[in-house]
């Protein structure tokens, strides 16, 4: 049975984010009250890395259950998009990523005061990624680069859980057929199965959010349909976990989300007992 490999520090999982930094990402996001798509993308990516870091935090350290990479694509190229000390790196252990954000902002939130009450608290808010948008959308080039990266990862971790590539875009590839470009990526495999490609579509087209659909019938445009076609089917564990988290997942659900924040995606991989009574952010 594929997709059964245990994720551990010895055998870590891999998340590779592909982020659209094209000029069209400067357009308004349909679900965002005037927010630009590039801003929504940055919010999503920072939250995903933040939550993944918290998930792997263990007492006063952080366990390297995952290695994470970010590739940005814009103008006519695709390149590693992490900045600061991590510039140029394709994949980084989560402990290093958590320890080296671009900056840490301070924000205020309400929290438990330990005696049944609520108090205001200043919390650290790390930022790894700022909004950016320029030029065309070489998504196929990004998928090609991602294919090379995950192929190397699978060679180095032949028994590991297959890499998960998460592409966040407004859906308009300017350098070819993205469905065809995705095929070599999802054909890369190790002993535990093939790499998985999930797509997060941030559209300017208004419409209800759609999460993990089983077919493309309710998708609003051809860009969404192409991204759906390129997306992998969820594994049985992912369907069960998504259902547990209140998402509308079924046996044939694909890793595709339209105009919604995909924050639950990082919980689709198991690293041990997760308390049901912890609210996911």
């Amino acid at each position, binding site marked *: 049975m594929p997709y059964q490999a*245990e994720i*551990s*520090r*010895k055998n870590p999982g891999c998340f590779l984010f592909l982020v659209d930094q094209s000029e069209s990402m400067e357009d308004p996001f349909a679900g965002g009250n005037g927010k630009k798509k590039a801003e929504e993308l940055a919010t999503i990516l920072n939250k995903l890395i933040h939550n993944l*870091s*918290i*998930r*792997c*935090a*263990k*007492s*006063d*350290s*952080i366990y390297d259950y995952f290695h994470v990479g970010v590739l940005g694509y814009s103008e006519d190229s695709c390149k590693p998009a992490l900045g600061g000390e991590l510039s140029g790196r394709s994949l980084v252990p989560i402990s290093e990523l*958590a*320890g080296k954000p671009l900056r*840490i902002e301070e924000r205020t939130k309400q*929290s*438990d005061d*330990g*005696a*049944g009450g609520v108090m205001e608290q200043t*919390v*650290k808010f*790390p930022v790894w990624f700022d909004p950016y948008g320029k030029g065309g959308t070489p998504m196929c080039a990004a998928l090609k680069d991602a294919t090379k990266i995950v192929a190397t990862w699978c060679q180095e971790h032949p028994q590991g859980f297959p890499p998960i590539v998460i592409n966040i875009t407004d859906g308009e590839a300017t350098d070819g057929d993205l469905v065809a470009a995705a095929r070599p990526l999802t054909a890369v495999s190790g002993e535990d199965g093939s790499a998985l490609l999930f797509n997060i579509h941030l559209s300017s087209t208004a419409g209800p959010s759609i999460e993990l659909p089983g077919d493309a019938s309710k998708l609003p445009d051809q860009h969404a349909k192409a991204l759906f076609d390129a997306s992998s089917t969820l594994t049985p564990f992912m369907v069960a*976990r998504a259902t*547990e988290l209140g998402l509308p997942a079924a046996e044939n659900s694909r890793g595709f989300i339209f105009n919604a924040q995909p924050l639950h995606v990082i919980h689709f991989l*198991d*690293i*041990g*007992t*997760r*308390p*049901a*009574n*912890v609210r996911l952010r």
Partner: protein
Amino acid sequence: MCACAEHQLAAPAVNHAEAANECDIKVFSCPKSGNSAEEYEDAWALRQTRTPPTGGIRVAVADGATESSFAKLWAVLVAESYVRSEVTGAEFFERLAAARRLWRQRLAGRPLPWFASEKAEQGAFAAFLGVQIDAHENRWTALAVGDCCLMQVDDVGKRMRVLKAFPLEKSSQFTMSPYLIGSRSNGEPPHERIQISKGSLRDGDMLLLATDAVAAWLLKQHENGRPLWKWLYRKLGTPESFAAMVAYGRKHGLRNDDFTLVRVIHHDSPVAAKER
């Protein structure tokens, strides 16, 4: 508990306590394969009580959740709190204020990086099972939140019937996201999450208290017609025998996790036997 090298079969530790004349109690535990002994996040506690009417043996196991921080500390505090108290019902969870305070105090003032600080804010979480054994009256009372399990097997050496599996009865009921007890003030379990059960004991009955992975596996073996009850009763007694069971289990569906197994074999007290 002894340490084990990474990438090798965890060398299990065995603890043995003759807690009362009426019961033979052995405790076995080992960390998840690939983890050090310091990273073991289960806990167990045991105490003989003499105060009537609750005199007897109190034993508890707790399983700190992997996806929470400082979970080992919390699991120890919950298990110890149970064996040091005298209550057997849901009110136990209302009396965890001191344990919660201790947990907070151990973290207070500790310099933590942003991720560790934020994770600690969520609190630690643990599954819990506590059992009071009234050996002289040949009965037990169990209290549980989460997926640590009690299994009672009778007719040991004969038909080996499973009289009780509590709070989960089948291996299919175990999940990776059980409801657990939290170390923060809002971590008290709601009434519907608290499970209580009672039962009687006969001479030779075996009670097993286990954290989730080993409990699920023992139930699965039973469901598949390959029960280990007789082996557990007759052969489990040394660290080596526990290591052998774990090694066998890892080849036959035992999930990699911390393992804790408490085996209690009950013997009728002369007084109780005479009265019946």
